[in-house]
């Protein structure tokens, strides 16, 4: 009767954007007479921070302060198409659309500033809300003055649109899976180590520490990306040791219909979480960013399962790793079946054991 500690690791990858692509996002931007910037995009913010990230991209691309930017994703009358906030695409795909729209707005500002300063627009740049002559920054005009000139002198609206779409990789060879076009954009990578403490009397698995490494391409907002990674870690912990809609799957009995009977992670379950961010820029995301929102809950379950084995010598491969499953595995002390050069784990779960011949999984012995 003792508590045992163990460690396990996992390394994973995850694509950005919808599988097979073909998922557009669009944006348009207008500039008010005082140079403040209104962004219209159709990207729902589900807590992933896309309002913030897309506003940062617009501010950076035009060259104005972040707090000059207003972001409106509130309705389909004023906002153009965004396929949606899923598939880790809100920063990567929709962020690229606002970047393209902002580049056009920047170009319009430079055109009008060029007229006002009588300097070729290609010799101008925008820094912190001011248009400056490159190499001669004393020659300048504030973006608000450019916007005023557009409105009151030239009778123009400074605006820009942008859209991002990768072609739909529609042809998948039904026999081999070979595709005609890349079926995804940038692939992100991550690795995770879990440290656990397993009580061999109660079967309780406590995750004490998660160390997580994510290649995010470029962290547009490090605070928000850390939030995604830490939030994902907790969701991965739920997958690993707590949550289950069907506690006796495949049976549908004993479903939990309230928080008291469905174990989502709570603060008492939180381990120490250490996050390491790597920036290996993507070639096609905004400023080199990749999307890591979804993969953030993928690496913990296998790392935890491996750590449980390291702690108490049993593999539990039906998630979640509940106390009941740990105790049953400790009682069974099941060893893999060996035949020739084949090492077979989990034979009792296989279709070869459970199905009545309808489906098999055949491997040469």
């Amino acid at each position, binding site marked *: 009767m003792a508590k045992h500690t163990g460690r396990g690791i996992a390394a*994973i*990858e995850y*694509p950005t954007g919808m*599988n*097979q692509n*073909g998922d557009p996002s669009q944006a348009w931007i207008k500039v008010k007479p005082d140079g403040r910037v209104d962004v219209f995009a159709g990207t*729902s*913010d*589900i807590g992933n921070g896309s309002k*913030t990230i897309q506003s940062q991209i617009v501010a950076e691309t035009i060259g104005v302060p972040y707090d000059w930017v207003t972001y409106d994703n*509130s309705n389909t*009358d004023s*906002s153009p198409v965004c*396929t*949606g906030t*899923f*598939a880790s695409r809100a920063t990567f795909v929709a962020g690229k659309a606002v970047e393209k729209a902002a580049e056009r707005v920047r170009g319009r500002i430079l055109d009008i500033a060029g007229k006002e300063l009588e300097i070729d627009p290609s010799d101008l740049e925008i820094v912190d809300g001011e248009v400056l002559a490159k190499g001669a920054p004393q020659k300048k005009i504030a973006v608000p003055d450019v916007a005023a000139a557009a409105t009151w002198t030239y009778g123009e609206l400074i605006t820009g649109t942008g859209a991002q779409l990768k072609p739909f990789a529609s042809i*998948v060879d039904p026999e*081999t*899976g070979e*595709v005609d076009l890349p*079926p995804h954009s*940038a692939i992100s*990578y991550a690795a*995770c*180590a879990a440290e656990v403490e397993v009580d061999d009397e109660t079967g309780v698995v406590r995750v004490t520490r998660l160390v997580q490494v*994510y*290649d995010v391409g470029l962290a*547009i*907002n490090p*605070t928000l990306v850390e939030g995604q990674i830490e939030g994902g870690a907790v969701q991965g912990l*739920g997958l690993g040791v707590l*949550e289950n*809609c*069907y506690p006796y*799957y*495949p*049976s*549908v009995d004993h479903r939990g219909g309230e928080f008291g009977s469905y174990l*989502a992670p709570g603060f008492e379950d939180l381990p120490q979480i250490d996050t390491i961010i790597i920036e*290996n820029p993507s*070639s096609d995301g905004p400023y080199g960013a990749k999307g890591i929102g*979804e993969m953030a809950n993928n*690496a913990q*379950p*296998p790392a935890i*399962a*491996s750590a449980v084995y390291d702690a108490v010598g049993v*593999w539990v*491969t039906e*998630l*979640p790793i509940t106390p009941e499953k740990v105790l049953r595995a400790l009682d069974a002390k099941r060893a*893999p079946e060996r035949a020739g050069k084949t090492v077979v*784990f989990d034979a009792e779960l296989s*279709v070869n054991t459970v*199905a009545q*011949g*309808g*489906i098999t999984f055949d491997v*040469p012995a």
Partner: protein
Amino acid sequence: MKAVGARLPRYDGIEHVTGRTTYVDDVRVPGMLWVKALRSPVHSAAMSGLDTTKAEAMPGVHAVVTHADVPLLEYGHLSALGIPADEPLLAKDEVRYKGQPIALVAAEDEETALAAVDAITVDFEERTPLLDVRRAFDDDAPTVHQWGNWYTHFEGEMDRRQIRKGSIDDAFEQADVIVQGVYRPAAIEHVPLETQVALVVPEANGRLTIYSCTQALYFSMGVVAAHLQVPLNKLKVVGGTVGGGFGGKVDTATETMCALLAQKSGRPVKWRWTREEEFLCSSTRAPWHMEIADAVTKDGWILGRKMLTLHDSGAYARFSPYGLTKHSFHHTGAYTIPNLSFDGFVVFTNRVPTTAMRGFGVTSVSFATETHMSRIADVLGLDPYEVRLKNANRVGDTSPNRIVYTDPSTVSVVKALAGGMDVELATEYAAMTRDPREGDLLPAHLVGQLGNPEDH
């Protein structure tokens, strides 16, 4: 100051933490009606004699809708990806899962709506449900779906998603050890704090304003427009701020039905699911059944992988064929494996349809393949970091779909993790990069399969 790369405050953070964000359920309009649903009490049954007349006659009830009120009853949400329609918006002559919506009532308050739901009569002829995906292919299995017990429309007519690369037979032949295992991650709930909710307001000009918690404004607008058979200018979807989604709010679970009730009653209608409905009737992450047999050398090279995946889709297809395809494209994980034989099935069962959730299609395969990787290292007595580095995706390697990896980071993240855990790697692994393999660490007999990027 630079905006990109800066730790700027969240655009809507103050609203969220001070409770001033307006979510759909915070929107109240004059004359608003409340909605409750009649849902299937059983897992599988033939249905007949649906009668709503008593409910419609009750004081305070303004509209009742059933399948007969829906202009297009079945709409394939991913028809653009070639996945045909299979699910009625409201059950017609059978129910395939407990909780499936059959009829909806809009009334002056939720109590009246509930009483009216109780007054709807319908007869069920219960059937034996199919619940175990492993038994779905057996001769004596109950039939769940009009297409049979598994999806039959991959690339038009394939009954499975299939990957074949190299020669799995040769890999098994060459292997020193074949490691086999079974992996079964569970269904879980999305657990958003904001349950599924919509408010639809019929405007004087004939448009419908749809307040929605959707994760995808235009996607959900397309779903409503298709079921109602109206052009997009008749609808205005208001949203963009979601109280937790995690994939479950791609479902468009409430918007269309509220739109039908708003049209029929001429009044604004709101439907907000109870926590119990959210847990028991909303879609879940799918449970998966995965079997892997890897052909490995005694020094830890993975020569080949054979894999069988059964994706428990629940009663209808929804996004599952998409999820399984994505799963198959990533079944080698962060590694390059030259010989592959993958077969995946979307299997129908009499449980709540499963849907997208964070990591869709890949969370499952990451669990299976990475736990398997740890097992391989353990069986062979090798270091788990080094086995991963050895097989890592390298520039010039190809994916299961024969796409060349141009910027893989497996080596970087595993080395950084070792650093974070104070694990010292052997010199040859510590020096490893993602650059194309030039035979480093690669035994001569594998060079033809793994070692030479020009050959891929």
